[in-house]
């Protein structure tokens, strides 16, 4: 399965940067998730078109304490105008 050799890149398992998402048991952000899925379906699975909807999802998560608040710049949304605290 894994190759070894002098010029093979060794891939080590690494932790996700912000850890794990807390589970959304009550489904508080389900609406935003469905919006995102609909957008993906409409735009033929293109991520670039639906990034603003994903941002809404993250905002929902942050507002309900399901995600650590982070500046949008640090999440790759540097070109957005609003800044979350």
């Amino acid at each position: 399965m894994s190759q070894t050799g002098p010029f093979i890149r060794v891939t080590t398992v690494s932790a996700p940067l912000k850890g794990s998402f807390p589970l959304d048991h009550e489904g508080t952000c389900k609406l935003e998730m469905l919006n995102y899925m609909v957008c993906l379906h409409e735009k033929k699975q293109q991520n670039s078109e639906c990034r603003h909807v994903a941002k809404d999802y993250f905002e929902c998560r942050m507002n309900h304490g399901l995600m650590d608040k982070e500046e949008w710049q640090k999440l790759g949304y540097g070109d957005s105008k609003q800044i979350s605290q």
Partner: protein
Amino acid sequence: MSLSKLWGTARACCSVFHVTKAPFSSIASFQKRGKVLSVQIVRQFSKKPSRIDKSADTKNYTYYVMSLVIVAIGCTFAAIPAYRIFCEQTSFGGLTQVAKDFEKISNMKKCEDRLIRVQFNSDVPSSMRWEFKPQQHEIYVHPGETALAFYTARNPTDKPIIGISSYNLTPFQAAYYFNKIQCFCFEEQILNPGEQVDLPVFFYIDPDYVNDPALEYLDSILLSYTFFEAKSGLKLPDPFDPKNRPSIAPSPDKIPEATK
């Protein structure tokens, strides 16, 4: 040819060529020099090796050969840390992976010319009774852009089940550039009976993906998640602990205690 003979020949040659200091020699003097040189060389080779010479020569030979052997052995021992240092400096073996910090995410630029298709796959072992599947089959993402994807899990049974997931990425060369900002892996997630949750994966592909020559024609990555059932109270070793790396060297806690 013994060493002393070699040395004698060399000295004879040098002495013959340094005898005349005339800036421009004529042909006659060249011929004379040649004759003298040949006489000297013949004299050196006709010398019978003396006993003292032979033992000194063999001793010299032994010293030379032994020193070569020691140098070779030293090189084999030194190669291991030297290779590790080389790998760390040039990040050749993937030891210093892409820097995973927020600064990099803030500053990275989207690469417009490459569109990577990330496909999603889900697996559960047969004993695990969760229903686990991705919400989208694939997503087209540019390197340098953060992306969000969803999985759903449902617990159809009447008992709460704790799951823990692991992921896998193929092909391996592309997996090097796949970085996750936040996901739901490697931590216990509990699902109550009849509950359904959305599991998001927030990731990005490193912009250096476009600079890798091995990945020039590779535009498809497969992300595969597997959910295993976890027994409650089970303390798993942390896979990200740097002390928990697999190694051949025996560690103190693995050696069985003889005195008990």
